[in-house]
């Protein structure tokens, strides 16, 4: 019966449609290849070596330190980069988007990015006595990405249900405050960790109240809430916290756990499995969300509310209730991430200590294509870029800090240039459902 619908004879009518060429990727790759050539290859003295510790004493491999001839290594890496840039030009010119299962856009930029960063590191430690600790570079990156990951997860949940959560910043800050104060009062970091989500949830509830119940523009409410939390915590900080430091601002710290066996896997072991407790919590949250959002009843209904709320309503899903509950949940996730700033480090609360990480988390969510695993990767990229300056500082490299602050944005350029695929926001995010 359906033959007339499916056999629409499209093949008879359609000429081949030419995709417009996109030159973003090859141009970006070429520019960075030239940077590598001029900035790294030519400025490294001949005969210098770069020493990188790949594994440390504890692993199954024992200690492993590579001594690379800097200049040769840089030449090899630059040649690979040039080849990838060439492949990019070829692919754009011939309108090739994939070879076999390999998507040109994403894979070339990922491999290129790794090469470029490696070249930068080899150059930075060339001819120095100290050794670059590769594992601590990565595990530091993971740790620094924690608030970004939690924030991005909060954003992902909220946006999929149809609410734009700009108040991640405020939720992180509220979580940081709550974790520190409760942790200090109870002298127990675990109680602090448990209460941090409550603070985030309260901000989430306020967002839901105004955005879902009163149809106020989501972005405006979000920004207002950020200002509110900043003001409130700063006020409490300067009145209550500073006057009674012993009670409110004594520091507690979540422990760092070393998972037996797993932590001894070379390279990734110490990165993934010698971490602060909050990092393990993060693993669980990301995996749960990735599975539940796309495979569970909760996730299906939640996404239905963000894509086509009216359709969800006609199927008996209570749209606004779903939106409110999950916006609160999102706030709680961000609040949990706020604990990173205080009790994960063993620090007391400080004014505006989240320093805009909530907004970077939003960027990570978008870069990750509104998917938990994508947002995780994006947040890790930001975390890595952030950590570079710490790692290099330890080695004693003098890179201007302004340049290092640019690193996350350079990373973004790569990622966006490679992001040629279709990434789409939930269709009805930010639009009130009026029943």
């Amino acid at each position, binding site marked *: 019966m*359906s033959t007339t619908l499916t056999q*629409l004879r499209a093949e008879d*009518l359609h000429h081949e449609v030419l995709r417009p060429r996109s030159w973003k990727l090859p141009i970006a790759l070429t520019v960075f290849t030239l940077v590598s050539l001029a900035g790294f290859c030519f400025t490294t003295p001949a005969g210098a070596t770069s020493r990188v510790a790949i594994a440390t004493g504890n692993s199954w491999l024992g200690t492993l330190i590579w001594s690379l001839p800097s200049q040769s290594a840089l030449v090899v890496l630059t040649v690979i980069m040039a080849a990838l840039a060439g492949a990019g030009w070829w692919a754009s010119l011939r309108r090739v988007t994939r070879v076999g299962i390999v998507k040109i856009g994403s894979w070339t930029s990922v491999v290129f990015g790794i090469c470029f960063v490696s070249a930068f590191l080899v150059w930075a430690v060339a001819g120095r006595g100290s050794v670059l600790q590769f594992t601590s570079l990565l595990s530091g990156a993971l740790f620094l990405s924690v608030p970004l990951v939690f924030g991005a997860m909060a954003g992902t949940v909220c946006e999929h249900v149809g609410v734009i959560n700009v108040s991640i910043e405020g939720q992180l800050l509220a979580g940081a405050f709550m974790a520190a104060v409760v942790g200090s009062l109870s002298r127990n970091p675990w109680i602090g960790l448990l209460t941090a989500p409550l603070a985030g949830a309260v901000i989430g509830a306020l967002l839901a109240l105004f955005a879902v119940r009163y149809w106020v523009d989501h972005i405006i409410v979000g920004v207002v809430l950020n200002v509110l939390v900043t003001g409130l915590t700063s006020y409490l900080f300067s009145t209550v916290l500073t006057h009674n430091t012993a009670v409110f601002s004594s520091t507690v710290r979540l422990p760092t756990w070393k998972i037996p066996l797993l932590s001894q896997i070379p390279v990734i072991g110490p990165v993934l499995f010698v971490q602060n407790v909050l990092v393990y919590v993060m693993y669980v949250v990301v995996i749960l969300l990735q599975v539940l959002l796309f495979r569970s009843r909760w996730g299906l209904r939640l996404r239905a509310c963000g894509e086509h709320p009216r359709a969800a309503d006609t199927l008996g899903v209570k749209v606004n209730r779903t939106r409110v509950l999950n916006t609160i949940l999102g706030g709680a996730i961000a609040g949990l991430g706020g604990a990173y700033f205080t009790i994960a480090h063993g620090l007391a609360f400080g004014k505006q200590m989240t320093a805009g990480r909530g907004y970077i988390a939003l960027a990570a969510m978008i870069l990750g294509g509104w998917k938990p695993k994508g947002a995780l990767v994006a947040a890790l990229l930001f975390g890595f870029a952030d950590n570079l300056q710490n790692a290099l500082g330890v080695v004693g490299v003098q890179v201007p800090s302004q340049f290092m602050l640019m690193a996350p944005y350079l990373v973004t350029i790569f990622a966006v240039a490679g992001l040629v695929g279709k990434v789409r926001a939930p269709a009805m995010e930010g639009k009130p459902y009026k029943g």
Partner: protein
Amino acid sequence: MRLELRQVTKKFGDFVANDAIDLIVEPGQIHALLGENGAGKSTLMNVLYGLYAADDGQILIDGAEVTFSGPGDAMAAGIGMVHQHFMLIPVFTVAENVVLGAEPIGPFGMISIRRARALVTEISARFGFDVDPDAPVEDLPVGVQQRVEIIKALSRSAKVLILDEPTAVLTPQETDELMDIMRQLRASGTSIVFITHKLREVQEVADTITVIRHGKVVGSASPQTSQADLASMMVGRQVDLTVEKTASTPGPVVVEVAGLTLVGPDGRLLLDDICFSVSAGEILAVAGVQGNGQTELAETLIGLRRPTSGSILLHHSDAAGRPVTEDLAGKSVSAILEASVGFIPEDRGKDGMIAGFSIAENLVLDQVASKPFSRRGTLDVAAIAANAADKVTQYDVRAASPSSTVATLSGGNQQKVVVARELSRDLALLIACQPTRGLDIGSIEFIHSRILNQRAAGTAVVLVSTELSEVTALADRIAVMYRGHLVGIAPHDTARHVLGLMMAGVPYDEAMSPDQSGEPGDPGQGGPQ
């Protein structure tokens, strides 16, 4: 299941959308709900489906009163609905859409995709649908999406299925197939409430007809009732269903479109090498299922989109009356309007008027910068008001005053304002897109007669319409579009099923050949299996 509505009333503020409506749907019956746009059919069904709460009245199922606080309750009671605008989530797969709200749960509390898939396959097989449960809905043609909606309703064991204007988005062949599906459903004991304003479909498939006008039931009829009688019940007066049209006397060619190609920003081919010409005093209708490039064609002709290649030659006379030929391709909208082209956009609310402006202002939107409506950069309010008073009488715009905003007008009166503005200049070419969409029959008649007047006055008219009845009523020739491609140009008396095949991409010669021109009611491959 026997469904009964008693004295159902629904008000929106002062407006009574449904006024004490009684309706009985017997089991295993196709019950047509016939009425004009805005008569209150959809409102009534949304009340029945639990989306709106009735202000008064009762709903009874098998004699027992029920109250629905939401669609969930209605579904549980065995009522399913296929909405006019599909309630499908584009990024979900067919299976996910079907089970949403009633998900089968497998191991670890996850949705059992296997069982969801099996459900879709089972129901598809029962009705001979060929639907891939794993296909994302956004990739499916509308006809298939509609089947997904039907599967969704049946998967919740609907005993009464409401179909709200289901044929609006279908080709004639797909419409015929849908009617077969409706008969199959009836045979299996499902009753159907079929909402429509198309008389032909009602006569073909309905068992009982209830006619609604201005929110009230005005009577019921049998399918044997003539179209003229049904129409007069629907409108409340005698309606002349055939448009008075004289034989066409085309003059010289006014517009020649050659090789018109438009590539969208995403690289999709929106218009593919379109060639046609229209003569003075001729109506060329552009038919096709919504979304096959008609909108893009009209927008390219009027200059809202810049064609990738091709030409649009317009032969007209300049201000001094000398004949000139201009290529409109790539010209600005204002230059094209200047070249005496008029444009009635398909979405009057969005593109045809400024809702917050007064009727008088909307009537001069395109001429507000020139004499006589402005002088030395200042609006001549008196001239604008005089023009408005004149046009409001001439076009029978029913409004409190010409200075009230167009937002306060009914759809028909809004469209009259748009048409009055566009026809107030001497036109060489008129591009009219969906000029009567969503209007009542009175307004439709009025606008049709105005378009025919233009034809008589020697204007070349390009009429873009997805309503086949409008196309056949007005056209001198019919161009059919499919996926951005002009399938062919057919004479105005081409049979409905031939046009239907062309709308599915079959070229004219092939559509006319004997093996394709079977009986209109039989799609050939159709029938219960």
